């Protein structure tokens, strides 16, 4: 190869930036064709480059670095803008550029009529650049750069159609919640910096912490607590980006943006940043069983919580949004039980089928002139045959039907969670070693596995509910849309087909084995020792669960069950007033399952969500602003002597404390 393989990383990272610069600065004058070409080609070439780099790695070569420039190289301080291509970042890069490219292509059709077409592509490319910094950076600072960058770009993209106050509020909410998360991330980063004496490079960190990992059992309490604090702070950051409880609230609202944006940012890439970060720092997280258990618990709770909410949504994108939150919960459950490989596996397959589902929903919305309520659709398989087939594949994949991608990855996670419980012969011993981790939390992980299975049931149900209501039954929307649908063009259909294929074959890629080299020794030990009674029975159980969900959805929305409402309505007229049309199931379900879950959930999360985030964050910020405004009016009243009084009072306080 004449080309140095290292420089491929430069192409991967900086081509999208180039695209963003060209489109952002000159896009207005370039015309649509050039904008399209620049926007898509840069990401496409980046994908091809990533493919080459991956092949290089796959042929048994060592992971490699590429130094973009010596950013800070003064005295004891070394921070480089350096990129690192190992098994993990290779996989992430492929997913990000691959799925990203398809979404770019899809956007050509979807955003074709927008007046700020060039600006959209500039933002999209900028987002790709930030995301690639996040996954390819070889140290915490570059990751932070990407971390902030994706946040900013997502803010720009959610706000792309900022015309009404509601959407502006969604943007604000996303912003505030992400700030809370980023704040945790930053604190964690600084604590880590403090603890690791300024080391920011992953490899150096890894060697630093693996020295301690050798004596993990005998880690001094102080260090152990510090590491736990670092991990928990970083996890707060991960919660913010990856929409976990209690910071998930921004994601459903963020659906205000264009649909391809949701597919790219809120399904395939940015929201996985938290999972990536924890996997990247697995050597650190493995040192803190408490943090790991917290992550697993939060993940499982998020999975079930979001899944139950997903069942009653009427907006096609909201369903997918809650489903994303729920699937991310699975990934966190996976990393929490040390099944890093399985989590990244699910991350990858989820990127395929969720991008597919979002793009499919985009095609549907596009066809329906912007209608998003699934109960105003129906029978769309007639109108959109290709979208229908691909959407079905995506739905099957997410529902966990054997043979499709989602099945394998979800299985791997649940297997990891279930198998952890009965581990006894873990090589590492001592107080708070891994065996204690596995031992103390064993029963708890079994519970979490069951929670995961229930969530899987819900997932199968609400996804097929979405599918059946949208593509089967009778059309219930307005006639105009039915008579004049916007048929998706090739630019929209080809990405759907490619993603559909990936949603099937993606499951056959041995991600867990592929990622083995990047795992720290304790994490590998944990993986090798998975075994339990539950894990043996797991596969039949989860297949059954998926089938029940699908059949139930069919029964209630397409099969004989759909007549139940009218049946009730004719017998019991009072019911009719309560549940008109098709809402019966929703109402019933709402009363019997969602309400109890939500009562519990609300009891648990009311405080966090409503008080902390909505109260202090979203509504509290304006309140603080108003209060501060009132206060400042009183203090800063323009009188010069009042300012002098403030100085003298400051002096008096100083005298009081110093005398």
């Amino acid at each position, binding site marked *: 190869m004449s080309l140095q393989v290292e420089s491929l990383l430069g192409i991967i990272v900086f081509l999208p930036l180039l695209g963003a610069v060209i489109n952002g600065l000159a896009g207005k004058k370039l015309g649509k064709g050039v904008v399209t070409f620049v926007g898509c080609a840069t990401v496409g070439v980046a994908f091809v480059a990533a493919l080459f780099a991956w092949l290089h790695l796959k042929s048994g070569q060592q992971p490699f670095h590429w130094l973009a420039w010596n950013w800070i190289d003064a005295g004891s301080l070394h921070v480089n803008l350096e990129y690192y291509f190992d098994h993990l970042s290779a996989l992430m890069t492929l997913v990000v550029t691959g799925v990203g490219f398809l979404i770019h292509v899809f956007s050509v059709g979807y955003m074709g009529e927008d007046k700020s077409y060039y600006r959209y592509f500039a933002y999209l490319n900028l987002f790709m650049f930030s995301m690639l910094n996040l996954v390819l950076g070889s140290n915490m600072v570059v990751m932070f750069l990407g971390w902030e960058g994706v946040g900013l770009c997502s803010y720009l993209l959610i706000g792309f159609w900022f015309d009404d106050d509601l959407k502006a509020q969604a943007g604000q909410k996303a912003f505030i919640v992400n700030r809370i998360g980023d704040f945790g991330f930053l604190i964690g980063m600084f604590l880590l910096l403090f603890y690791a004496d300024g080391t920011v490079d992953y490899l150096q960190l890894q060697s630093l912490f693996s020295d301690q990992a050798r004596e993990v059992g005998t880690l001094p309490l102080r260090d152990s607590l510090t590491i736990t604090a670092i991990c928990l702070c970083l996890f707060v950051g991960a919660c913010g980006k990856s929409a976990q409880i209690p910071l998930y609230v921004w994601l459903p609202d963020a659906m205000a943006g264009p649909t391809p944006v949701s597919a790219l940012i809120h399904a395939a890439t940015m929201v996985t940043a938290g999972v990536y970060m924890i996997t990247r720092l697995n050597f650190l997280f493995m040192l803190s069983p408490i943090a790991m258990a917290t992550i697993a618990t939060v993940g499982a709770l998020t999975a079930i919580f979001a899944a139950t909410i997903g069942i009653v949504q009427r907006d096609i994108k909201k369903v997918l949004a809650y489903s994303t939150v729920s699937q991310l919960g699975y990934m966190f459950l996976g990393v929490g039980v040390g099944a890093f490989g399985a989590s990244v596996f699910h991350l990858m397959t989820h990127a395929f089928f969720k991008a597919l589902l979002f793009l499919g929903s985009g095609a549907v919305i596009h066809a329906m002139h912007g209608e998003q309520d699934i109960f105003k659709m129906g029978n769309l398989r007639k109108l959109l045959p290709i979208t229908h087939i691909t959407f079905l594949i995506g739905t099957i994949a997410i529902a966990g039907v054997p043979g499709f991608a989602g099945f394998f990855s979800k299985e791997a996670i649940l297997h990891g969670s279930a198998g952890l419980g009965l581990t006894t012969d873990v090589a590492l011993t001592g107080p708070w070693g891994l065996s204690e981790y596995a031992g103390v939390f064993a029963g708890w992980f079994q519970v979490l596995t069951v929670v995961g299975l229930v969530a899987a049931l819900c997932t199968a149900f609400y996804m097929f509910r979405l599918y059946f209501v949208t593509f089967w039954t009778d059309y219930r929307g307005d006639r105009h849309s039915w008579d004049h649908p916007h048929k998706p063009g090739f630019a929209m259909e080809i990405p759907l087909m490619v993603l559909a294929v990936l949603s099937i074959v993606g499951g056959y890629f041995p991600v867990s084995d592929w990622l083995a080299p990047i795992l720290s020794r304790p994490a590998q030990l944990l993986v090798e020792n998975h075994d339990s009674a539950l894990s043996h029975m797991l596969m039949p159980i989860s297949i059954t669960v998926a089938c029940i969900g699908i059949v139930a959805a069919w029964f209630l929305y397409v099969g004989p069950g759909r007549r139940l409402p009218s049946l009730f309505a004719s017998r019991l007229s009072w019911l009719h007033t309560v549940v008109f049309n098709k809402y019966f199931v929703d109402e019933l379900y709402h009363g019997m399952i969602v309400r109890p879950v939500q009562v519990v959930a609300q009891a648990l999360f009311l405080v966090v969500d409503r008080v902390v985030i909505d109260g202090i964050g979203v509504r509290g910020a304006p309140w603080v602003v108003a209060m501060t*405004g009132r206060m*400042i*009016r009183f203090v*800063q*009243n*323009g*009188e*010069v*002597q009042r300012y*002098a*009084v403030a100085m*003298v009072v400051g002096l008096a306080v100083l005298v009081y404390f110093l005398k």
Partner: protein
Amino acid sequence: MSGIPLSWWLTLGTVLFGVGTIGVLTRRNALVVFMSIELMLNAVNLILLAFARQRGDEHGHVLAFFIIAVAAAEAAVGLAIILSVFRHKRSVNLDDVRALKH
């Protein structure tokens, strides 16, 4: 001529300084406020000279000289500013000049 202990001088200086400070804080008339600032500077001069006398060296005198010079410079600019304020507001009351706030 040297029976007075240092602490008396310093106390006198500090009292004068306090009187000047209170004048700055309480009087509305910009001219009087400015006079109070001059009082503060004089209090410092007194303290400096007392220290100089105590130590028997004249550095304190030089410092006092600089303070007088600076006070003169400030007086010129300050009174010019007060004139300017009067031209705009027809008043030299400090609390009449409070358009910039919050």
